[in-house]
């Protein structure tokens, strides 16, 4: 491959392994998104796999650029921080919105309300 310069063997093995692991986890998450039957099950599939998958791809990228440029290239940590902090928040918001819609429409697929509710409701 002309684009890839001479890399040490251990680096090529580790980067290739981490990339394939991350992409495989992403594919598993996407298949879960496609195959699981209800929305409340489907929410779980992409989160886990995408967070783990992007984590291992970021580690591969950090490793590759740190060794190739002979200095610590750590700016990928920024993406990891952004993804890890925002992913749970967005999916929590989305699930609450879906629950609100399902309950308002009286959908039987929605989880039931908890038995004891606060007086402020």
């Amino acid at each position, binding site marked *: *491959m002309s*684009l*890839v*310069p*001479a*890399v*040490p*063997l251990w*680096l*090529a*093995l580790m*980067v*290739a*392994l981490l*990339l*394939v692991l*991350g*992409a*495989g986890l*992403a*594919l598993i*998450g*996407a*298949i879960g*998104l*496609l195959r699981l039957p209800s*929305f409340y099950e*489907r*929410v779980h599939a*992409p989160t886990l796999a*995408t967070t783990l*998958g*992007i984590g291992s*791809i*970021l580690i*591969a*990228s950090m490793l*590759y*650029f740190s060794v*190739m440029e002979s200095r610590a*290239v750590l*700016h*990928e940590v*920024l*993406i990891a921080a*952004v*993804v890890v902090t*925002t*992913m749970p*928040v*967005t*999916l929590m*918001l*989305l699930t*609450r*919105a*879906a629950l*609100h*819609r399902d309950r308002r429409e009286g959908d039987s697929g929605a989880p039931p309300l908890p038995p004891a509710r606060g007086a402020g409701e």
Partner: protein
Amino acid sequence: MSAAILGAGLLLAQLLLAAAMGCAAWRLMRGPRAQDRVLALDTLYMLAAMLLLVFGIRSGSTHYFEAALVIALLGFVATAALAKFLMRGEVIE
């Protein structure tokens, strides 16, 4: 030898990510309700960021990293706004 291993790993990762994007796009088109489509869109954002990182390793430049960071941030904003819309019926109250 090592370049061949790295090239094969990069190619396989790109193919797996493309298949994952295909699955997410299918759910985006078919999803029975709006929240399924929003979830598929969020997954597509994350997969696009991952694909850009793999492109960055393949081309050996760190410029793709910035595009991936912008996509990750925009994915958060877009999904939060769409969830707010599904909840209230309007984005800004």
